[in-house]
């Protein structure tokens, strides 16, 4: 694995730690944000979306265009 891959691994671990850390994730009563939608975004959904985008970028990078 190259240095870039290790960088990605570190990034994925940061997202996971962030998600499962009581200091960041809402441990008390959750406060909804981004109002006006039929349902509201919440921190864990935002983190999941960040993870999703990261996975897509990583897959493009890691697999390249090889057959």
């Amino acid at each position, binding site marked *: *694995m190259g240095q870039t891959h290790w960088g990605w691994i570190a990034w*994925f671990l940061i997202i*996971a730690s962030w*998600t*499962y850390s*009581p200091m960041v*994730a*809402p*441990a*008390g*009563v*959750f406060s*909804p944000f981004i*109002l006006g*939608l*039929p*349902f*509201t975004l*919440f921190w*864990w*959904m935002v*983190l*999941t*979306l960040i*993870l*999703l985008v990261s*996975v*897509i970028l*990583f*897959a*493009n990078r*890691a*697999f390249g*265009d*090889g*057959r």
Partner: protein
Amino acid sequence: MNLLALGLLLAYLLVLLVFAYYGFRRREDTLEDFFVGRREIGKFVAFMTFSATLFSSFTLVGMPGFFYTHGIGSWVFIAFADVFMAVMIWFFGYRIWALGKKFRYITPTEFLRDRFDSNSVMIIAGLIGILFLLPYISIQLVGASILLSTAGLPSLIGSLGFVLVILVYSEFGGMRTVAWTDAFQGSLFLLIGLLIGGLFLAWHPGNLFLDVLRVDPALLSVPGPAGLFTYPMMISFFIMIIFMPATQPQLTVRFFLPKSKKVLKTMMIASPIFAFLAMLPTLVIGLGARLIDPALASGDLALPTVLTVLPGFVVALALISVIASSMSTVDSQILVLSSIITKDLFVNLRKKKISRKARMWIARLSMFLLLGAAFLISVKPPKLIVTLSILSFAGTLQLLPAMMGALFWRRTTKWGALASMVVGVAVLSLAQWGGWRPWFGFHGAIWGLAFGMLALVLVSLVTRPPTRNGRKVVAFLEKEFGML
């Protein structure tokens, strides 16, 4: 059963039979064709069969129940972990795909046999797979029969019909047909789920979250009203779920299917998008049901409760969606267990060569017997079977040290792999049946994994590394990917 539901069910079955027919026409009577579709599955079907296999009827029935009972922590429990799982497609899936292409593996356990030059490793790993998957299949049949009975079919007839349909299309077309039907069933499941969630939001006048906050604020926090989602427990579930591509054989075998690296890349990109979209409606249904009736007898009634406020045709669609998601998981599990019995326990263990025709007979017969066994167990499942089905992910997680050692650490030995599996299952059993309370609030499976890893390392360091085939596999992995 109302006419619309019956009509849709018949149309759905007809499509499955059409797939079976085309799969049968393209078949080639070899195990490679029957169990891994000749490794020539394309982008859409490959990622859909992976996703549809991953999401069973639990998604549309059980997950809304989790949101209903335990609140927002359920999102992290499964949605975040399912998206994160895609990272493991790169770590494990890529290597397994390359090994399958090079050494023509048909079962994941066959790879372990070669890597460690050991039939014992293959047999123990295969038996762990069967022990923890067959009960899960039976419980899925119980769920399908209950669902069909609510639509007017006697439960035994419903369950038998469910089994027969899977048997027909899997026996005729093998993996190719199973992958096609998975793509069809997965599309149905996703689209209908999104339709139900969308229609509910259109029906509901206010903001879902703000209304839930008024009804029960504990639902929007962890550990939730029942106290399930403590941080150690959420981390335990996260570990159990993200490693499923390496530990649940019906998912691992899907890495043998892609015809190219590009297909594998599509799998890695598209499957987390599918997971994210599939989880959205379960959140809406679970929290929505809480607003309609906060005192349901069971969280599993969340979906039927939400359906009461939606147009009648949606009920029929929901029935098809749940049946489709259940079938797409059961067919894959049965096929992989059949491959383990045929290839690992018969072909690989017999010194005498078995003819191609005899192999195919064993494959088809084992599938018939497995489905028959699952059906018989499902008629009146003993308590142990129910417990084993709940422990399905936890049990197969104990295969992870052996799989990781095989792929990433060249010093791993067969004794290390064997020790890891035995110790892992023993620790899990101790937590489940031996009265031991796992430390620091983590699930017993996590301690099984930790002790299994320790056993793998310690035993490997004091035993001899693999010879012959093992060296070939290690040399390939080192050349293509590098190893520790």
